[in-house]
């Protein structure tokens, strides 16, 4: 069920340059089903900025009724969000969208998780769920440079983790695809979230594999009513378009025309 709730800030901290980790608490957490879903936040009660901000969920803790988001403060909305302190309220609409399917991979099998920049966060909850299930995750995480790398240790605790930076200031140099070329492809399914060109490259690279890709698009309503976030589809499916917010943001590989 989608709800709107005034949730309370439990914790907020900077974890890399302009990258924030924000934990909120409230009943809405109980409705979060899949890793890869997102929430739509109002960062202010004022008319400026007016629209909600879609932000992916990076971690869910139903026991404490808390969930965590990791986001980059690079616009007026996310900058305001980064000023929120413990005890402050945030108006949350969610959980929204369809997340990553984990039923296609069994205990003992491997799953490849590929994240690019601010697309990395939703893979964290996904990896936790996979590990709970007995699946072995392999993480390949790409960032621009060392100062924006985050959660390396957290991912390492869950499984094999490769970090790559575009400028080579940390980990390997280049794009995630440079690392992927050196890895065995003995995984059952791959999951990815990040820039669209990266998702396209993965689809090409693993065209024989089952994959789930999380897309990003400018949104209006976040619930499927306004048709702002539509994407063209391939011949593979019998629909002229899909909406990232309500049909996605996660789609099986081959559905969205990249």
């Amino acid at each position, binding site marked *: 069920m989608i709800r709107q709730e005034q949730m309370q800030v439990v914790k907020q901290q900077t974890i890399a340059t302009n990258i924030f980790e924000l934990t909120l608490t409230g009943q809405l957490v109980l409705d979060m089903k899949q890793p890869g879903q997102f929430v739509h936040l109002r960062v202010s009660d004022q008319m400026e900025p*007016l629209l909600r901000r879609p932000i992916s969920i990076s971690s869910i803790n139903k026991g404490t009724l808390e969930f965590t988001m990791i986001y980059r403060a690079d616009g007026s909305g996310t900058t305001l969000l980064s000023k929120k302190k413990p005890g402050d309220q945030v108006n949350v609409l969610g959980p929204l969208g369809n997340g990553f399917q984990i039923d296609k991979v069994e205990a003992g099998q491997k799953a490849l998780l590929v994240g690019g920049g601010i697309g990395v966060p939703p893979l964290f909850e996904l990896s936790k769920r996979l590990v709970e299930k007995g699946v072995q995750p392999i993480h390949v995480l790409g960032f621009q440079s060392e100062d924006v790398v985050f959660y390396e240790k957290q991912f390492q605790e869950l499984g094999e983790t490769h970090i790559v930076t575009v400028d080579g200031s940390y980990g390997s140099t280049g794009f995630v695809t440079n690392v992927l070329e050196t890895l065995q492809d003995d995984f059952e399914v791959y999951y990815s979230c990040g820039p669209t060109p990266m998702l396209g490259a993965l689809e090409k690279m693993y065209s024989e594999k089952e994959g789930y890709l999380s897309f990003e698009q400018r949104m209006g309503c976040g619930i499927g009513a*306004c*048709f*702002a976030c*539509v994407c063209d589809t391939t011949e593979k499916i019998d629909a*002229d378009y899909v909406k990232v917010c309500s049909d996605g943001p996660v789609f099986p590989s081959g559905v969205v025309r990249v």
Partner: protein
Amino acid sequence: MNRLVIELPGLSLKNPIMPASGCFGFGKEYAKLYDLSQLGAIMIKATTPETRLGNPTPRVAETPAGMLNAIGLQNPGLKKVMENELTWLEQYEVPIIANVAGYTTEDYVTVAEAISKAPNVHALELNISCPNVKQGGITFGTDPFVAEELTKAVKAVSSVPVYVKLSPNVTDIGAIAKAVEAGGADGITMINTLLGMRLDTKTGRPVIANVTGGLSGPAIKPVALRMVYDVAQQVSIPIIGMGGVSTIDDVIDFLSAGASAVAIGTANFVDPFICPNLIEQLPKKLDELGFDRVTDLVGRSHRL
């Protein structure tokens, strides 16, 4: 006595609050959040004869106290709207106002004739004001003669009253209003969005793929209010007012300026529960202002 009831051509509204076309799809998404039967009416997304896939993305951009959109009238087309969407909406006790759009007069006539026969469509809203399509839309809404002729053609085939949705992107909106009234319009809905644009300051490129988009949200309320106030004095057919309505005070202002009912657009994206919330707040606001009924408020600014 029901204080919120409003009677308009074709429409017995249990209250004067309705979601505006294009901001509510065909209701399915919002039906997951609340009972649509609470609403005064629903203005469904513009329907054209054939399927339309709309404009390239990005289609929206935020602006100070508002937003730009250039969706491009994306809709599944007349047949699917009638078979899937309107049929599905029949489960709710809410009159539907069908927004009708097209490239040509024939398109409007085709859609109007068919869709006005749907049992839950109680009125049409002629979209002669969409700024985001290259043909049709606004080209019908900026010339009084063309607007009048189109209204006549649609009136001749429609089984329900016809409201015409006016564009603010004109020099004299009163002239268009009088023309559609002369063409037989039963009511006016106003305003559609204001043509605008936003640039990426770093690159100088337009943020919206369509280059320009329609501005909506609180930023346009003063413009909309002025236009409703003007038009209300120039025509005798009722007005459904809209443009940046997001609070109960905005609702009161539009009624005072001469609107008989009020539509909510962009505010649905900010607070998806805005329509039921405003409906709930309305009686209290009437008490506060000392009015018995919503109808007592309509056009009060002109009687002062």
